[in-house]
């Protein structure tokens, strides 16, 4: 469904520009499997800047290949994950991150689901509380007039 859904032709054209994925090529891969694995993990978090919502790990656009090589070079140079990501962000901006960092501008993005859950839970809680209070409240005692009427109905004069 990736590009497909109701077949947005425009999106499809873009998808094609990035091609059916061939992505990581054998010649790019690092010989150290652990480091290569790390490179793949980092790549999945970086956006291919010329594609529509594809990570550089999935994309075979030339730019994505360059980025994959940069990631691997930095890893070889001894950078850790955070340093590699900082390096890439410094050059390409926050837009490249598929997982936006928590900043003043994204605080709503990250907190909204939690706030909604709490807010919704509070509303649901009130839904239960109110009727319950009504149920639990003992009925008001009868007034003298009502008691009189009741006696009349029951015929106990």
């Amino acid at each position, binding site marked *: *469904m*990736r*590009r*497909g*859904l*109701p*077949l*947005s*032709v*425009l*999106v*499809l*054209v*873009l*998808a*094609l520009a990035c*091609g*059916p*994925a*061939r*992505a*990581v*090529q*054998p*010649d790019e*891969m690092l010989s150290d499997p652990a480091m290569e694995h790390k490179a793949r993990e980092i790549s*999945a*978090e970086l*956006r291919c800047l010329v594609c*529509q*919502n594809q*990570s550089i790990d*999935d994309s075979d656009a030339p730019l994505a290949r360059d980025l994959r090589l940069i990631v691997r070079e930095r890893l070889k140079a001894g950078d850790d994950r955070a340093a590699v990501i900082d390096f890439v962000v410094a050059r390409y*901006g*926050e*837009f*490249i*991150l*598929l*997982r*936006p960092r928590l900043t003043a*501008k*994204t605080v*709503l*993005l990250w907190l*909204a*689901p939690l706030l*909604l*859950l709490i807010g*919704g*839970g509070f509303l*649901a809680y009130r*839904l*239960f509380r109110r*009727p*319950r209070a*009504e*149920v639990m409240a003992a009925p008001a005692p009868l007034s003298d007039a009502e008691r009189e009427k009741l006696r009349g109905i029951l015929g106990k004069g």
Partner: protein
Amino acid sequence: MIVEIGHFALILAFAVACLQTGSVAWSMWSGDDEPRGIAAPAALAQCALLALSFWALIWCYVVSDFSVQNVFANSHADKPLIYKISGAWGNHEGSMLLWVLILAIFGAAVAAFGNNLPARLKSNVLAVQGSIGIAFLAFIIVTSNPFTRIWPAPFEGQGLNPILQDPALAIHPPLLYTGYVGFSMAFSFAIAALMEGHIGAAWARWVRPWTLAAWMFLTVGIAMGSWWAYYELGWGGWWFWDPVENASFMPWLAGTALLHSAVVMEKRDALKVWTILLAIVTFALSLMGTFLVRSGVLTSVHAFAVDPARGVFILAILGIFTGGGLALFAWRAPQLRQGALFAPVSREGSLVFNNLLLMTICAAVLIGTLYPLALESITGDKISVGPPYFNSVFVPLTLILLITLPFGPLLPWKRGNLREAARRLSVAGAFAVTAGIVALILKPGSSMLAALGIGVGVWLIMGALSETAFRVKAFAAPWPEVLRRLSGLPRSSIGGMIAHLGVGVAVLGITATSAWRVEHIQAMKPGDRIAFAGYEVLFEKVAAQQGPNYQETFGDFELSRGGKPIVELAPSKRQYTAPPTGTSEAAIHASWAGDFYLVMGDAAKDGSSVAVRMYFNPLVRLIWIGAVIMFIGGGVSLSDRRLRIGAPARRRAPAEPVAGQA
């Protein structure tokens, strides 16, 4: 001539839709109930006209009439017949025509089969349905006319994008649209109820089957799109949190919530206001999905600004129907009588919890999808919100929902006992914990999340089975008694059980393939042999062949296991002539253990070797099998409803409360 007939029928359908809505409006204004009578025949006529119009468009594609702009831009004389036909909805204009056709079919269904609805409610529903038709027909006629001619007629068409020339994708849009548009029924019923100012269990009994049908089609529609992405896009992923996917997933989540809250309303006459709101929101999300996909706003805010006509038009439709619906809701909802009371721990309470989580997930997907757009238009900053964000928000919320799910059906209405439900689930719990531990032992080094996922999948499956076992007293009563109880279970209850089981099956597939998928990338020469994921792969040769409208280079691979050949796999790279594009076709060997997925990449520069990538996706089929099981569950439940609605004699009797029914 046929083109003009189709075009004329389209315009006439617009006029008839105006009549459909206008007549009811006239009745409301004048207090005279006579004009209302037109709504039903008008709905049938609108449907017939749009069917004629859509048939005309398909005819243009079949005979390759390139004097029609739409056919010229999206078809080619050499294309196989099935893709000529599916090409009719494989583009913007044609798919919008399909959209209104399905809308009109739903309207016609109410007109034809809604005789046991109160006459006023029926015509009000048709009026609302007609007004949606008016908006979208105007949109098509003004901005996206599929019957526009070009002169002189070109000799050949430009062709359909090859990755769309695929059987799954040929039927994906009709399924998906049936789901999207089906939610218009819930919307129309909600608005009609708000106009009348009262709403009862009968309303829910009517809305539920429509919502259920829409939900079923949306479920398989999404699953089919995901399956297509899996085998066609060539890297074995099946869900990408692409905005286009999210656009269909949000109505699915809201529709699932609606389905469950409608149960409460039908059985217990409670949660009325909330159910009405959900009906409006679900359809609003369907409209938003249409807007997001059709306006180009997702590609970039600028694409939207360059050609604003279509986007602004759909945005206006979205605004009018959502805003109008919500305004009516705000005005009328306080007058709706609140229904029966219930304790927090009860079937109703569990369904409220289900709704809370489903709608939070839905909101999270919505926020993630729209946040970059909103941020860019407010501050100008560009950020990306991709799969890592969605996974980290979606997974925990969904886990809470799924872990609590099996308790719901085991709680009685009004007031339940959590301990009693837990006791009934103890067997399922034991199975789930064992499954999680077995997963950790079999796949050492797996994450706790993987073990949890497997446990949750088993928990859902066993929970659904335990529920049924208790209903029929499977281990407590003699066999004849059990069979009698089984045949006596209401279909809707069995359907719910099957659907929940389907969710469990899908969760197993999702967890296994996400956690234990393995990949290998290597440059291979003919004659090379490698071992991977317990298989041996022999690369035999590369060869070329000619397809109906493409040239193909394919690799010949022999897949064997333990020295025994299993299958020949032939992944290929195709070059289509019109339009000139390349695709790569994966070769997949499916088994119950998982899919062996083979893709051939580019040849090395010196031509000596080819980049080959292979994946083993364990249990991946379970994802789609789970979706199909959910579909079947919906169908079983629907068969129950149809029986009850279709039998007026029974309907007149007071609705008997069916004890312990889902």
